[in-house]
């Protein structure tokens, strides 16, 4: 061994260290990078060599090499005793470990050891590393250790421990409440570093859920006035920024200290100004109009500053104010528009952002016009694209609230299509579609513009490869087709759509082209037939037949399919035309009906009709074993059916019409079919804000077809004129009114302000609101992301801590259980159970990985076995089931290493061996735990497991109360009411519910009768089921394992006020250790002292009775002497114990 060590260190001399590696890489020696050598080094026993290798790996990781394969070696280096190596290990771990790293759970004990290391740097390095790769499991297991470190003597450790708590909270939200008091305490830590760390953590927490931290405001107020640390100050001011909107009074109080701060930091005043502004946001600002003006004025100075950083920050702060007080910012429009010309892109983007909030009906056209100029000037596509999206955002915000003239908007959109190389073609297209569909009045104009676009498609689609703009052709084609009745020169448009050049467009656009051609064709046909121009109608059909084949040859399936289908249809029409049959009506009927916009969330909001269970299987899910035999069969069967389907070669028009009629009828009765709106007028009245605007129809003399000429400017001019005219008219009216109403409302009327409401829209703006299904469910929580990690931290912190809210402490398993070799089984089980939990989550992933340890593999197999058996459970009889439940009990006992456990399976007694026993679908196991903070309550946790293949819902648990024991029901419900179980159970799922019982006396065991009622739902319908059960409250379940020291134990025995009783059980064959473990486990005792085959044990009841035991083991018997402050309790306990022991 020694020789090996020496050899190792000699080897090491010739090893390359990090510097050599770097040097090698810099000299472009490829072999340096090859990690073969490193792999070899990792295999060495010498820890220094390993550390060296890991260090090099860390460097390679930075260069982009995946080093996760070395995770285990990294852990080895982490567990080195020397700080030098440990640090290298932790650094590598922090760079490459993450939640998916499977070996990470091996680190728990190592980290715990390091955390309690006497060397503060060991602890520090462990904390730093942990902060980067903490997982929910690690957080749960280590939370308590870190809590202890928060009151470490060294400030260096304290501040790190405080800071890492934030990460722990994120991963393990349950720890927040228990840890919060101490965190709060740290705000007043003598060490400034610790203080700043605590402020840091609380600020991060408060940013997400400010309302829970309002109570800390006074404390922070004190800190703000006393602290000299800039970091702390910034953080606190940020925190107040989040708090003031919730508590307006805070703002008032803050003004003075903030002004003081500004004076104190005269040099950096600008810096604090922007903070000040942010902080005064919200409700408080409206209370102080002066302060607001001051702020905005100061910001103006900032923005005009030559320092770009300050300019940026000024704009940033301005946008914050804008959210609450748009008016006060709007006066600085000039300044912001000026910033659009800035050479710095960050500042330009900020200014754009501000503009978004500044628009109003009045200035929208002006602002957009300025933006359009910038679009033309802008170099670099990113900024131009940004401008484009901003223009669209600005115009379309809050349902086109600010647009008074949609013709103007359409022409803006058309102008935007002339941008080259933009990525946002689809955005423009979406806007075009949206406006055309939702604003009825604009359709005519939109169609004419779109026709023009189609006509000039060659300009747009000149280079389709890198050009996203051709997307607008999609919109153009669709609009022209759908609203073809508005088209003036439909023939020309149709021809434009049939041009050979179209085939170069992307497939999905061509598909839309083909579809809409037919719409156009149908409307032309109708026109011609009505006018009696049969020749022209036939001509147009001929044109279609001639040109469509180019689409039939398309490589795109969709285009090809549509085109060939339509070609056939048109050929058929031609036949009819030759026979001089009028066809236009039928053809147009193909596209009858109007499309209405549907709200994006509409589908989600369709209420589930009563009696419809979406989770229920429609058909029995095929079991794995059967599917293999049956699959080919079904395929065959299906195919046969398909073949035998009668073919309808050609349906006559009558039949078609009849069917159409039937379909329409069906649609009319179908609530989920989106119908054409029966009364758009009604809807129009519903839209607020538009209704009260006087509708003025103005004849616009705009040349509509000037391809390639910007037109939106004309609208701006027109708009100005129009407004001017309106104003004049209004003034006239007012004068009249004045004359009429002189005296009475004199003052009121003369106060003329051109508010936004005064601007009348140029069009009958009929913005169709998006459709929602009838009786849609109102819900505001649509937008909440259920995966938001911060939501879990929304916890009320002011509530007093309950005793149950404790951080999990790693308890030592009963020492005895470890000492004997034959009782080693349970801990091993426990260990393997832990990964099992994880496996459930990552089963798929983990299975793929071959690096598994043997132990874990076994567990997987075990689990699979279980699954298999559960699949066949239908056929199994009740007896087997009971066995299983026992199994479950056992496994559960092993699983929880908590001591409280008195599980008992509850099953329906009236069961026959039915093939599918519906009533035996629930398996419930329960467990009674004493409630520490309330001496007369116990919590019964019941695990319900759905053993059937049906869905269980509306479960309700009811217990017949006894005088002594009562179930705690919600206020207002009577003794006979059951308590609903707060979940439903899909097949094969288990879940846990807790019920609280109050007791008066605990000295006697109790049995309570109860019923569980539930609804079983399967494909045949739902049935109401009942399950009777008994809850057995043993005396042991009132005991709480409490450790006791031998001296205290001796004192207790000496005190003499304990009653004594004893039992003796014969025929015990198990070992003493095992026996003690049993008592500890089942009866909640802890061992105080053990000498040979004699042990003293202690426990305490929830009502504070002390129970002491002296257990002696003879040859084949055990005698137990008990002492307890209550004789009845003691005798009952001993009886229970006797029962347990006699089973062994």
């Amino acid at each position, binding site marked *: 061994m020694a020789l090996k060590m020496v050899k190792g260190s000699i080897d*090491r001399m010739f090893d390359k260290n990090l510097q050599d590696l770097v040097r090698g890489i*810099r000299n472009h020696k490829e072999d340096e990078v090859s990690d073969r050598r490193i792999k070899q080094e990792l295999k060495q026993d010498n820890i220094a060599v390993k550390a060296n290798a890991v260090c090099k790996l860390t460097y390679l990781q930075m260069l982009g090499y995946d080093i996760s394969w070395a995770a285990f070696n990294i852990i080895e280096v982490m567990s080195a005793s020397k700080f030098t190596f440990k*640090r290298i290990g932790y650094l590598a771990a922090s760079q490459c470990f993450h939640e998916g790293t499977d070996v990470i759970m091996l680190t728990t004990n190592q980290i715990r050891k390091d955390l309690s290391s006497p060397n503060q740097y060991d602890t520090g390095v462990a904390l730093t590393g942990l902060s980067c790769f903490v997982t929910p499991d690690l957080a749960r297991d280590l939370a308590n250790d870190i809590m202890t470190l928060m009151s470490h003597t060294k400030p260096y450790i304290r501040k790190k421990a405080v800071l890492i708590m934030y990460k722990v909270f994120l991963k393990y939200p349950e720890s927040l409440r228990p840890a919060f008091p101490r965190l709060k305490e740290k705000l007043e830590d003598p060490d400034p570093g610790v203080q700043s760390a605590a402020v840091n953590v609380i600020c991060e927490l408060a940013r997400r859920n400010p309302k829970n931290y309002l109570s800390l405001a006074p404390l922070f107020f004190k800190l703000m006035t006393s602290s000299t640390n800039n970091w702390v100050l910034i953080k606190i001011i940020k925190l107040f920024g989040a708090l003031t909107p919730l508590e307006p009074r805070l703002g008032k109080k803050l003004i003075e200290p903030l002004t003081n701060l500004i004076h104190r930091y005269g040099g950096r005043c600008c810096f604090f100004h922007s903070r000040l502004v942010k902080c005064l946001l919200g409700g408080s600002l409206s209370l102080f109009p002066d302060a607001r003006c001051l702020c905005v004025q100061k910001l103006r100075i900032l923005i005009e500053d030559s320092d770009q950083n300050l300019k940026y920050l000024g704009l940033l702060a301005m946008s914050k104010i804008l959210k609450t007080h748009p008016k006060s910012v709007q006066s600085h429009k000039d300044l912001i528009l000026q910033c659009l010309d800035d050479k710095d*892109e960050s500042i330009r983007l900020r200014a754009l952002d501000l503009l978004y909030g500044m628009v109003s009906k009045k200035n929208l056209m002006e602002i957009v016009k300025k933006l359009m100029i910038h679009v033309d000037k802008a170099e670099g596509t990113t900024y131009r694209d940004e401008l484009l999206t901003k223009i669209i955002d600005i115009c379309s915000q809050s349902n086109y609230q600010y647009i008074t003239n949609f013709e103007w908007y359409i022409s803006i959109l058309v102008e935007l299509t002339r941008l080259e190389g933009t990525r946002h073609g689809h955005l423009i297209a979406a806007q075009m579609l949206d406006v055309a569909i939702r604003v009825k009045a604009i359709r005519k104009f939109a169609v004419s513009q779109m026709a023009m676009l189609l006509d000039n498609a060659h300009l747009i689609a000149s280079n389709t490869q890198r050009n996203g703009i051709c997307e607008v052709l999609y919109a153009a084609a669709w609009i022209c087709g759908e609203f073809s009745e508005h088209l003036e020169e439909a023939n020309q448009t149709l021809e434009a759509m049939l041009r050979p050049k179209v085939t170069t467009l992307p497939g999905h656009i061509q598909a839309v082209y083909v579809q809409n051609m037919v719409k156009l064709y149908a409307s032309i046909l109708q026109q011609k037939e009505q006018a009696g121009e049969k020749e022209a109608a036939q001509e147009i059909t001929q044109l279609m037949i001639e040109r469509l084949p180019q689409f039939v040859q398309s490589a795109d399936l969709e285009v090809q399919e549509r085109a060939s289908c339509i070609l056939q249809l048109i050929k058929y029409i031609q036949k009819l035309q030759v026979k001089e049959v009028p066809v236009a009506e039928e053809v147009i009927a193909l596209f009858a009906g109007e499309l209405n916009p549907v709200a994006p969330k509409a589908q989600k909001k369709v209420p589930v009709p009563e009696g419809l269970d979406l989770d229920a299987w429609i058909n029995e899910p095929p079991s794995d074993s059967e599917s293999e035999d049956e699959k080919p069969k079904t395929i065959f069967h299906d195919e046969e059916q398909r073949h035998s389907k009668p073919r309808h070669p050609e349906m006559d028009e009558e039949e078609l019409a009849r069917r159409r009629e039937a379909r329409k009828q069906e649609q009319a009765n179908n609530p989920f079919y989106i119908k054409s709106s029966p009364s758009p007028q009604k809807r129009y009245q519903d839209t607020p804000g538009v209704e009260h605007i006087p509708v003025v129809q103005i004849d616009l003399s705009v040349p509509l077809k000037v391809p390639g000429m910007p037109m939106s400017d004309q609208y701006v001019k027109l708009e100005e004129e129009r407004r001017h005219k309106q104003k004049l008219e209004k003034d006239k009216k007012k004068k009249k009114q004045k004359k009429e109403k002189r005296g009475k409302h004199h003052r009121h009327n003369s106060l003329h302000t051109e508010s936004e409401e005064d601007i009348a829209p140029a069009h009958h703006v009929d913005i169709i609101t998006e459709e929602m299904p009838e009786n849609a469910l109102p819900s505001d929580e649509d937008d909440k992301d259920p995966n938001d990690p911060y939501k879990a931290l929304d916890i009320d912190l002011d509530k007093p801590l309950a005793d149950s809210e404790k951080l999990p402490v790693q308890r030592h398993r009963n020492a005895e259980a470890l000492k004997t070799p034959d009782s080693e089984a349970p801990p091993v089980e426990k260990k393997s159970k832990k990964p099992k939990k994880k496996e459930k989550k990552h089963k798929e992933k983990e299975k793929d990985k071959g690096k598994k340890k043997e132990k874990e593999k076994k567990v997987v197999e075990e689990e699979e076995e279980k699954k298999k058996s559960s699949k066949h459970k239908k056929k199994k009889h009740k007896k087997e089931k009971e066995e299983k439940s026992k199994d479950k009990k056992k496994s559960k006992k092993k699983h929880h290493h908590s001591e409280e456990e008195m599980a008992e399976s509850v099953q329906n007694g009236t069961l026959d061996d039915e093939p599918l026993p519906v009533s035996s679908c629930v398996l419930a196991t329960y467990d009674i735990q004493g409630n520490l903070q309330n001496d007369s309550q116990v919590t019964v946790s019941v695990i319900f497991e759905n053993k059937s293949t049906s869905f269980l819902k509306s479960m309700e648990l009811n217990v017949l109360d006894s005088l002594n024991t009562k179930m705690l029901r919600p206020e207002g419900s009577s003794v006979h009411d059951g308590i609903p179980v707060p979940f439903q159970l899909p097949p094969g799922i288990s879940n846990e519910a807790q019920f609280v019982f109050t007791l008066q006396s605990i000295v006697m065991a109790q049995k309570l009768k109860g019923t569980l009622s539930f609804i079983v739902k399967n494909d045949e319908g739902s049935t109401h089921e009942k399950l009777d059960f008994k809850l057995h409250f043993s005396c042991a379940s009132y005991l709480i394992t409490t450790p006791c020291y031998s001296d205290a134990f001796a004192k207790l025995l000496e005190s003499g006020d304990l009653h004594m009783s004893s039992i003796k059980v014969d025929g015990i064959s198990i070992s003493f250790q095992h026996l003690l473990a049993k008592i500890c486990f089942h009866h909640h005792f802890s061992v105080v002292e053990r000498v040979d085959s004699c042990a003293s044990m202690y426990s305490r009841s929830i009502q504070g009775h002390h129970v002491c035991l002296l257990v002696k083991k003879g040859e084949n018997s055990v005698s137990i002497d008990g002492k307890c402050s209550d004789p009845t309790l003691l005798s009952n306990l001993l009886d229970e114990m006797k029962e347990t022991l006699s089973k062994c």
Partner: protein
Amino acid sequence: MIKAILIFNNHGKPRLSKFYQRYSEDTQQQIIRETFHLVSKRDENVCNFLEGGLLIGGSDNKLIYRHYATLYFVFCVDSSESELGILDLIQVFVETLDKCFENVCELDLIFHVDKVHNILAEMVMGGMVLETNMNEIVTQIDAQNKLEKSEAGLAGAPARAVSAVKNMNLPEIPRNINIGDISIKVPNLPTFK
């Protein structure tokens, strides 16, 4: 929260990367490349803030960077951090590096990236600012170095000797001697600050 700290040189070569959010190695490289792209094309006299790139971005995040001689120091932070505060922190970081390496230059960062990581760990932990006081940071780093030296003791002596010999060679042997036109290229890396 700080999401990531990146240091790269004028050519986009990473000198240090520290991500406080999990990204795969490929994504990390992509982020570095993208960030370099964004930062490097900016003029010298524009502001030090940049609304985030696509990868690490999102509306809440921004890049705050400083350019020293050959190196860019980029912090990607979310809105809970103060912009000027982070700029200050970068300054503290660089000054601390300067103290620890005695007149720091890019080469120091290249060859002692682990040490840079250790210094950074004393300032930022898990994405949150731990310490901003330079003296305090330097004290802790010195104490840790002392501990490391005492651990190395005798056992470390031969290794140190070897590396000393190796290092001695570094300045003497030129990297690339081109006999053809007798020009000797020795990398010329100016110190910064």
